[in-house]
């Protein structure tokens, strides 16, 4: 048995001031094994992975790789020992081309011409076609991930670490990725797979280690364990599934009529002739791979990006030329994706953040002066209603954890009782319990008569809350279809996805 172990972790502990990220973590990864690492946000997955990749030094504990003590002092040393990592974000350079990006992740890259040939060869071999001369900023999310994977594969890794690899992919792209991972497994490469998409883990992985609050709380064979059981092990409590009270959709509230807009910046996407109606009490779910016009659509609806007047209509009133505050007055509230810096100002207090979008609808400005007591009361109302864990409204937005801040920014819009709510990625990077409560709040708002447009890359989420589903693809919106009974394959076809999405044929 000992010869079949690739990496063994024993008693790893890492503490940061005020928080123990990993506490006495031990497990082993076998050769050619796909091992899942499960846990909520803040459970210590990323610290653990960074330890293995040499970015973090553990306080105590030992690692052995192939029976030899393994103490990488930096990522370079980890790569030299055969450990490679595909990052969730932050590791590609938009302005550089594919070959340059790959060269940066290698220890001794060959000449650029040879490297380009190698990239073509390896990318064909694993069914991930890639042009080495493309500039990375022009690639789709799936193609960008291929860059990262090829970068790792060129170094013949023994252990490949993948951090949330499918969060930005279409179902078809996920299928291609899984084929590639299966080829790697057959070649004897071990894979440490981090995800919170439990169904994926059940199809791919043969062993799972579950972390909670930095400690290993369980092991299981995902093929034999139900997704619900694994989720409850992660959370440590039973899960609440959002429910929507039955109701009828009413009048059309929001009409988007032939909405077109040029790309706002170099790496943006142009919106092309989007037409759709949303009714009272209805949730329109919009799926799509990142970078297909989601940010631009939210900007065009919220008023950050102005369009021709008739392109956006609320209750028969043309609002396409109005700014965000005028649209709020007309009844449209929006919660954009990036909570630190877009939906909230990180260094300002929750009261100030509440005031910024709530001023119009909650009458927090009187005669040009701010009504602080009312703003504070509004912030407290949001904190209470949405169970935001914070000492009080005077705390800076930055001090809240991702899930708590997300509850606050969504709650802030919901508490304004808008006619139309536009939300982008409501539960991105939010743990399962908080995500369930956010989804429930969205559904409750819809039942009260609000028209909701929910843009998300999480298809399970959209299937859970949408009445109708449409997909964004290169700035175009597919005609919406009733969400009930839509299969994941049908959704995948609607998403279409990356620009060269022929299903790669793999000669395995």
């Amino acid at each position, binding site marked *: 048995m000992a010869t079949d172990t690739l990496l063994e972790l024993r008693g790893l502990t890492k503490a940061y001031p005020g928080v123990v990220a990993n506490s006495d973590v031990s497990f082993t990864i076998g050769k050619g094994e796909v091992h899942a690492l499960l846990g909520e946000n803040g459970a210590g997955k990323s610290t653990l992975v960074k330890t293995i990749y040499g970015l973090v030094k553990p306080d105590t504990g030992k690692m052995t790789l192939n029976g030899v003590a393994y103490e990488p002092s930096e*990522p*370079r040393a980890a790569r030299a020992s055969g450990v490679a990592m595909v990052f969730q974000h932050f590791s590609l350079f938009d302005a550089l081309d594919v070959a340059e990006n790959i*060269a940066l992740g290698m220890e001794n890259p060959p000449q650029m011409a040879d490297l380009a040939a190698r990239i073509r060869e390896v990318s064909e071999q694993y069914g991930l076609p890639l042009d080495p001369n493309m500039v990375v900023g022009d690639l789709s999310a799936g193609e960008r991930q291929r860059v990262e994977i090829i970068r790792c594969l060129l170094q013949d890794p023994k252990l490949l670490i993948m951090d949330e690899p499918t969060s930005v992919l279409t179902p078809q792209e996920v299928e291609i990725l899984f084929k590639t991972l299966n080829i790697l497994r057959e070649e004897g490469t071990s894979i440490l797979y981090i995800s919170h998409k439990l169904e994926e883990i059940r199809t791919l992985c043969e062993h799972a280690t579950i972390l909670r609050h930095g400690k290993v709380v369980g092991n299981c064979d995902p093929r034999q364990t139900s997704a619900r059981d694994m989720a409850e092990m992660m959370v440590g409590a039973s899960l609440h599934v959002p429910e929507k009270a039955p109701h009828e959709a009413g009048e059309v509230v929001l009409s988007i009529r032939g909405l077109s807009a040029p790309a706002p910046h170099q790496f943006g996407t142009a919106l092309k002739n989007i037409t759709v109606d949303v009714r009272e009490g209805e949730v329109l779910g919009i799926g799509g791979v990142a970078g297909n016009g989601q940010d631009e659509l939210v900007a065009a609806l919220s008023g950050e990006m102005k369009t021709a007047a008739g392109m956006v209509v609320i209750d028969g009133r043309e609002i396409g030329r109005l700014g965000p505050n005028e649209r709020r007055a007309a009844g449209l509230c929006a919660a954009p994706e990036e909570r630190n810096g877009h939906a909230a100002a990180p260094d300002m207090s929750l009261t100030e953040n509440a005031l910024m979008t709530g001023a119009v609808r909650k009458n927090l400005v009187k005669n040009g002066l701010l009504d602080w007591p009312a703003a504070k009361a509004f912030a407290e109302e949001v904190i209470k209603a949405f169970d935001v864990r914070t000492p009080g409204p005077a705390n800076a937005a930055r001090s809240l954890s991702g899930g708590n801040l997300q509850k606050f920014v969504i709650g802030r819009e919901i508490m304004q009782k808008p006619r139309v709510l536009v939300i982008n990625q409501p539960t991105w990077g939010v743990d399962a319990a908080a995500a369930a409560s956010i989804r429930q709040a969205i559904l409750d708002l819809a039942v009260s008569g609000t028209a909701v447009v929910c843009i998300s890359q999480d298809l399970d989420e959209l299937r859970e809350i949408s009445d109708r589903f449409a997909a964004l693809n290169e700035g175009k919106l597919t005609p919406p279809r009733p969400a009930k009974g839509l299969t994941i394959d049908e959704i995948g076809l609607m998403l279409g996805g990356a620009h060269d999405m022929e299903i790669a044929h793999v000669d395995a």
Partner: protein
Amino acid sequence: MDFSSINPILLLASLMVAATPIILAAAGELIVERAGVLNLGVEGMMITGAITGFIATVTTGSPWIGFVAAAAGGAGLSLLFAFLTQFLLSNQVATGLALTLFGLGLSALLGQGYNGIKAPEFPRIDIPVISDIPVLGPILFSHDPMVYVGIGLIAGTWYFLKYSRAGLILRAVGENHEAAHALGYHVIRIRIMAIAFGGACAGLGGAYISLVRVPQWTDGMTAGAGWIALAIVVFASWRPWRLLIGAYLFGGVTVLQLNLQAAGIAIPVEYLAMSPYIATILVLVLMSAGRAPGSLGKIFHASR
């Protein structure tokens, strides 16, 4: 008005000399900005280089030692900037402006007692054979060595950024410092080296003014050349050869307007004096197509 007094060969030859301080300083700043650091203290590092170079030359009698001292002076001042911005995470714009003010004051202090002294001559070298070619010879091949150092610096910068691995890493750090850190590159170390290189180049540029162009010491003698170097880097879209064109254009119009003034042309002096700035900015704006390095001017800290 007498345009016949303007000798086109002499004009082109002096254009190369007039552009050299800006080429030297701008090439250094280009490297600094490609590494993602915005150092607005070029003027301060230039004037510091001008005085340290001048003192060393007057003391030792060797302009070569003077240039080495100038590079050391500029780099030393830039390390102050590096310490403040890379370790204490101070704001780069404010720190750069302060560095300029500090450099101007420091150089005036160091330069007390050196006003009015003439520096030993820095000999021109006539490159054998090719300097005898008519027209081209005197324009291109009959200058002091620093003119060629400047051109070599541009060529070296271009080659370094385009072909070398170190250049690729430097660009990567400037483009996305978080990704570079995640891949295991030492963002701060690379940036400090880039800042020191930029300081050394600015020092050389300053010393070229005090040792070759003028050549003597006066307080504040760089007279805005550092700001022009900064502007040229931006308008040249952070590309070395465009930077060379921009600097020659600026040097050319500067020399031309001086000649026109001497020829007594009927345009007010003020317009002539502003013409190099306007011409350079106009041309480079028309040419500019690039985008700034993604992390330019942003503070990097490993924990964020």
